[in-house]
């Protein structure tokens, strides 16, 4: 067992949480589930499987996670972030258990390769595999980017090495739930674009420090080029690139659905939501009013700029 603590953020994950915890148990000395007041059996199941469950009001993924690493009583040398719908492959489990304790002290982070499983099929093509993410770091050496979407871990000191084996992002919910989730992601991503465009929030990290070149390059393309083209060109070219140039068609039926929805529809939706929200923002007189409008869009009543804290209220 490596000296590692696994943190899982949850909201209504009864379908996945047992699987995630069992997977984490293969490597972890401590498992924390940080739940944002699930209304299903998530917490109960997590406790039954031996995780330590803490509940904390959710604002956005990034703030929740930062709260977790700042406040949980973590005692291990290493910390790992795992999503509730993810699992570790057995190969990765052995690699972590064997290699992590042997890393030199100059290494403070470990990137892992993600494979995405969609409708039961591993999507190997279309530039979706492997996606390399910083998921393990020495306690205290990393923070999370404060963004509404696509937040990544950033190493504050030291360097990262990559492990060879994969973890899987394998969500078991249906297409309806995929659409619902991406509908919400699209709103958040649109908000990210507009916050940057209008410099609305101080806490928002722009394309600052990146732990890995893949992410930095992607983000730069997205922010400089993509968000300025007519709304259809980006999504259409991105889809064609993924589906044809990057051989997405080799992923079969599941690949068609995944690449169409995730590359084409989703990117298109973000584009028109930016447009929709921007119209709303332009009709407003000042920064305060714009921030309040953004808050309302996602169901938060106010965003306190001075403390950079967002207060959730039930509206």
């Amino acid at each position, binding site marked *: 067992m490596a000296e590692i603590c696994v943190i899982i953020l949850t909201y209504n994950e009864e379908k996945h949480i047992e699987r995630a915890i069992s997977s984490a148990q293969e490597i972890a000395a401590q498992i924390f589930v940080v739940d944002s007041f699930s209304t299903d059996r998530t917490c109960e199941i997590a406790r039954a499987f031996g995780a330590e469950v803490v509940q904390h009001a959710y604002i956005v993924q990034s703030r929740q996670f930062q709260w977790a690493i700042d406040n949980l009583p973590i005692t291990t040398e290493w910390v790992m972030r795992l999503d509730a719908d993810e699992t570790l492959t057995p190969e990765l489990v052995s690699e972590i258990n064997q290699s992590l304790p042997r890393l030199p002290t100059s290494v403070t982070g470990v990137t892992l390769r993600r494979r995405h499983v969609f409708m039961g099929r591993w999507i190997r093509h279309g530039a979706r595999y492997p996606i390399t993410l910083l998921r393990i770091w020495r306690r205290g050496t990393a923070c999370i980017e404060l963004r509404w979407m696509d937040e990544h871990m950033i190493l504050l000191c030291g360097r990262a090495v990559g492990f060879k084996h994969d973890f899987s992002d394998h969500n078991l919910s249906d297409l309806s739930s995929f*659409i619902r989730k991406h509908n919400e992601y699209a709103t958040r991503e649109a908000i990210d674009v507009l916050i940057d465009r209008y410099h609305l929030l101080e806490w928002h990290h722009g394309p600052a420090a990146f732990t890995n070149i893949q992410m930095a390059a992607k983000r730069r393309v997205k922010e400089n080029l993509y968000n300025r083209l007519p709304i259809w060109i980006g999504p259409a070219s991105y889809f064609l690139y993924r589906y044809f140039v990057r051989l997405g068609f080799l992923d079969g039926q599941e690949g068609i659905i995944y690449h169409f929805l995730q590359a084409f529809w989703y990117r298109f939706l973000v584009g028109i939501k930016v447009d929709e929200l921007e119209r709303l923002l332009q009709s407003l007189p000042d920064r305060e009013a714009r921030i309040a409008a953004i808050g309302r869009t996602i169901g938060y009543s106010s965003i306190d700029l001075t403390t950079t804290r967002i207060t959730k209220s039930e509206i």
Partner: protein
Amino acid sequence: MLSVIILTRDEEIHIERAIRSVAPIAAKIFVVDSFSTDRTCEVARSLGAYVVQHEFITQSQQFEWAIGALPIETEWVMRLDADEILTDELRDEITEQLPKLQRDISGVYLRLAYVFMGRKVVHGGRSLKLLRIFRKGAARVKRRWMDERMVLMEGHAVTFKNMMFDHNLKTLTFFIEKHNDYATREAIQTLCEKYSLFASENQSSDEDIPRGGKLKYRLKHNIYDRMPYWIASSAFFSYRYFLSFGFLDGKEGLAYHFLQGYWYRFLVGAKVEEFDRALRRLPTSQARRTELARLSGFPSVATRETDDR
């Protein structure tokens, strides 16, 4: 002379506009609400509508219940959605023409176009003709999971010239949510037809298709439904956007044609595929119905109460 029926659920942002849009021509306005959690009923009552509440299963069943149960006293009945509005010209046309219709005319088709993100979408083959006014007792609703249709049981229909608009004021997020739900319903409809899960004659037939719509209907059934859905939806979008000049509707039109004419059609196909993977392995209709109910999250699929008579 004319009663208007509006089905609602959480329509407080639209209901006043809808009621005011038909108030000048309606003898009575009925709002059939499926237990809104907002101020819909309150607003409707304050504007003089007759409000009843009734549990919702499908749009067609709700409307069928309405024409059977409401105390309709007028000769004509009109169906309006809460997010729709009539143009002044259409109101005038209804007022002038309806009383002059011959006895053998028992239905009126109205032309409907969409307003999306504030812009009229008039190209891309999106101005529809829908049977929306009929003589009391002369029409029935065909039970379907999606796209409920009125069918005339007697007499003929005419089409009025002027337009009405579907102008929803809610956000894109809501549009996506709604179409996500529609796609599930349409996938259920498709699979019920594929496996003959309906008890009786609810298989699609072209009996009730308006004359002008027959070609479109045949195209859909003989060509569209036989292609893999991702090809069919791509072709359908190209047809709407390029051949039917959808590109003239601007940025909003693009968003609408892409979402409603491409993504939505694609999603229906993908959900059919998703559900069918489980269904095609099952031996009996009852097993399929039970599984489809479970997968889709619509328990009433398992029972027969949603079947057409």
